[in-house]
């Protein structure tokens, strides 16, 4: 790659020639034009850029063709005598109105692309992207897991003690993984200072603003590994927070999500750990406060009839399997879901076990039972 100047001059000239000869995508792919798009949106932008640039090139050649003809032909050294004309209202109007018409014509495809770009509705998957100094955080909101993504290029390469590899500065430990052909909505924010999440092949660049959430979207149209970078100066390591997105097939994505969830669960709590009653009640109080208290109230009395009491309820003091079932499956009434939804996805085995234990040993309920996470795990289908 670093074989000196000739190659870049060659590719530069190739680029110019290709531009003059009709902007062949093939010849320009080598680092002199926008990257080959991998999404519908990036394709629109690519084509829009080509059209606008071509119009500009044509006008430029026209105007400076005239200037250079004048430079060539109207020289004093050739004995050219200066004419003394110095105004013409018709000409002035013409070169005001004609450019205006060209600009208005340009605005049609541009406006269409803007509206396409801003339409983040009907997304299949929503991922929250958070910029940190100096890494990216990704949260899969629908699947309830997340991770950080940090550059892996070693300092030895940066400082020249080792040879630089092809993905120098553009490689990370945990890439963002998305399925091909699905509309991905990215919610972008930052934790500390401004960052900007930029994936050239998807045509997405959105500043990450601390305290605010902005969104963008892309639909990858082919599988592969794609690379981008932070585009907003965010301090000294700004050049070292790359973005890597792996676009995979739908089945692979599903498998990857399952794997991620398992890993997330594994990191959280070991569902096979055996807890004592006091510890479960203490933890359960917190889970209850975060998830249950709004309806069932701190007193356990609920707000009947919509939100039944837990204190003294036969469902809480009765067989534990019934209560576990309610938390995992929710409550249906006349075939419709009630406010008591399933907590199977929201809470871990340990949290559910703790919450149940807490309710069975609080207020007037004195079952003295400690429900272990393993029982919840077993009850999950």
């Amino acid at each position, binding site marked *: 790659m670093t074989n*000196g*100047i000739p190659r*870049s*001059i060659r590719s530069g000239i190739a680029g110019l020639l290709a531009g003059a000869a009709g902007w062949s995508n093939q010849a320009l792919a080598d*680092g*002199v*034009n*926008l*990257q080959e798009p991998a999404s519908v949106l*990036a394709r*629109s*932008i690519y084509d*829009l850029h080509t059209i606008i640039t071509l119009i500009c090139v044509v*006008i*430029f050649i026209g*105007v*400076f063709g005239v*200037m250079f003809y*004048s430079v060539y032909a*109207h*020289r*004093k*050294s050739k004995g050219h005598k200066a*004419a003394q*004309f*110095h*105004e013409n209202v018709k000409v002035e109007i013409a*070169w*005001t109105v004609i*450019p205006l018409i060209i*600009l208005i014509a340009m*605005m049609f495809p541009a406006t269409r692309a*803007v*509206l396409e*770009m*801003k339409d983040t509705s009907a997304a299949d998957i929503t991922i929250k992207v958070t910029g940190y100094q100096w890494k990216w955080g990704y949260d899969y909101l629908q699947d309830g897991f997340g991770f950080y993504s940090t550059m892996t290029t070693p300092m030895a390469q*940066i*400082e020249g003690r080792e040879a630089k590899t092809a993905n*120098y*500065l553009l490689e990370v430990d945990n890439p963002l993984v998305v399925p091909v052909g699905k509309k991905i909505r990215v919610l972008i924010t930052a934790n*500390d200072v*401004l960052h*900007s999440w*930029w994936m*050239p092949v998807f045509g997405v*660049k959105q500043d990450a*603003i*601390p*305290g*605010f959430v*902005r*969104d*963008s979207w892309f639909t990858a149209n082919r599988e592969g590994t794609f690379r981008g*970078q932070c*585009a*907003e*100066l965010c*301090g*000294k390591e700004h*050049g070292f927070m790359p973005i890597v997105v792996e676009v995979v097939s739908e089945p692979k994505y599903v498998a990857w999500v399952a794997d991620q969830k398992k890993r997330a669960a594994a990191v959280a709590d070991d569902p096979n750990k055996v807890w004592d009653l006091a510890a479960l009640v203490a933890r359960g109080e917190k889970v209850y406060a975060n998830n249950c208290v709004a309806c069932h109230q701190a007193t356990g009395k609920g707000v009947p009839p919509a939100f039944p009491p837990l204190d003294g309820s036969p469902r809480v003091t009765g067989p534990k399997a019934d209560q576990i079932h309610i938390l995992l499956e929710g409550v249906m009434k006349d075939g419709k879901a009630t406010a008591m939804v399933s907590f199977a996805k929201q809470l871990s085995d340990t949290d559910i076990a703790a919450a149940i234990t807490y309710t069975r040993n609080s207020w007037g309920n004195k079952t003295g039972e400690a429900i272990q996470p393993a029982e919840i795990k077993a009850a999950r289908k």
Partner: protein
Amino acid sequence: MTSATHGLGHPQHAPGAHDSHDDHAHGPPSGFMRWVSTTNHKDIGTMYMLFALMNFFIGGVMAMIIRAELFQPGLQVVNPDFFNQMTSLHGLIMIFGAIMPVFVGFANWQIPLMIGAPDMAFARMNNWSFWLLPPATILLIGSLFVPGGSLSAGWTLYPPLTVQQGMGMDLVIFAVHIMGASSIMGSINIITTILNMRAPGMTLFKMPMFCWTWLITAFLLIAAMPVLAGAVTMLLTDRHFGTSFFNAAGGGDPVLFQHIFWFFGHPEVYIIALPAFGVVSQVIPAFSRKPLFGYTSMVYATASIAILSFMVWAHHMYAVGMPAAGQLFFMYATALIAVPTGVKVFNWVATMWKGSLTFETPMLFACGFLFLFTLGGFTGLVLAIVPVDIQLQDTYYVVAHFHYVMVAGALFSAFAAVYFWIPKWTGRMYDETLGKWHFWLSMIGFNLTFFVQHFLGLAGMPRRIPDYNLQFANFNMVSSLGAFLFGGSQLLFVYIVYKCYRGSGEKAAANPWDGAEGLEWTLPSPPPYHTFETPPAVK
């Protein structure tokens, strides 16, 4: 008139220009105090220009450091934090220390000569507006040496990064305050001079274009600089006095700063560009030996650009995210600026058309300006298109774009101005051969540096990074080599200017150019210390 040069020697009193009264019997002080206490527009103009030249080299050295680090992938020359300090200060020093002052220098020298006024309207304030600048530069440069170093958050000063900075940031804030005050005073002076001190018969629509563009620029400055002062003051209070203008946790908004900054920042682009347009509008007719085509439409186009420049600020912020209606409005308004700018370019080309052209150095630089500034204008139009800008925002494409506008635009125009007027200022012709060398080396060096940056940006290289992937290595090397050539060839410029001020070179006639017209060319070269004490007759 004596043969001594005006320049840096003792001021000469021309008996002819100075007949009826002589109430300052002792004359101005000599030596250093002459420059500290002077109220003479020519002395102040000279000081502005020398000050700008000094900053041009300080900012230039920073650019060389940047390009040296980017010569190859990997970190070799500086650490990332210092690299960021260099890019930030390079921007501030070149804009506020070099480009703006040099055009104020031209205004000081030329406007009174061009409109037949004896001096600027507020001569003492003129002295003060210049002498505010050196302390500002000292603060900027000094910020490099305080604990934590200087501003490393970019010349655009975006919070929250600027709130994180060390005390170097506070020095920069005060420097910006001081430079803003200086610009506002300078602008008031220029407006008052032009509106009140024109010689009898010099109606507004008889004024040279340079005066028109400066009149409009001065209004832009008065409108824009206080906005910047407000923005940096809010930064200061956010940093030290517990306010939360730009902190979401306290109810503020980091994006608010960007809106305020670019409400200043976009007019600032035209504050730099319009006087450059003015210079080119003087130079092209002179060397085409033909009057400026479409003078009236040029005035209206300049005014239109100035007004539109206040309505397009958010095109710097497309990637921040705003409603579709907002993006569309700013896209349409930005594209609209291409119309009056196009009118100016067409008028300049029409001025050359069927002229009797010669290509002395000022004309070369003016043609270089016309060609490359227009290229920068076209990339500006590409960037105005929101979806395309989303790809190119904060990449090297933008770096290339604004250097075509600022360097090939404003700087080349400043070179044209110096070569055009230096015979008047010093009484000596510059060395034409060296001048041409300076032009061609600058032209080649500039394009090597910045043309390839379009490709880098398109291919995906972000700006403000000290290191990059190998796919960008070749063009970066070309760019750095070009930058070293471009930077080095500016030493030639210093030598050429020095020769004129030293008084070597051919003596200049009152009007050394066949085609140049205007009151300044009716005066001897160099002009006496005091000129037009009796208003000239304007036909």
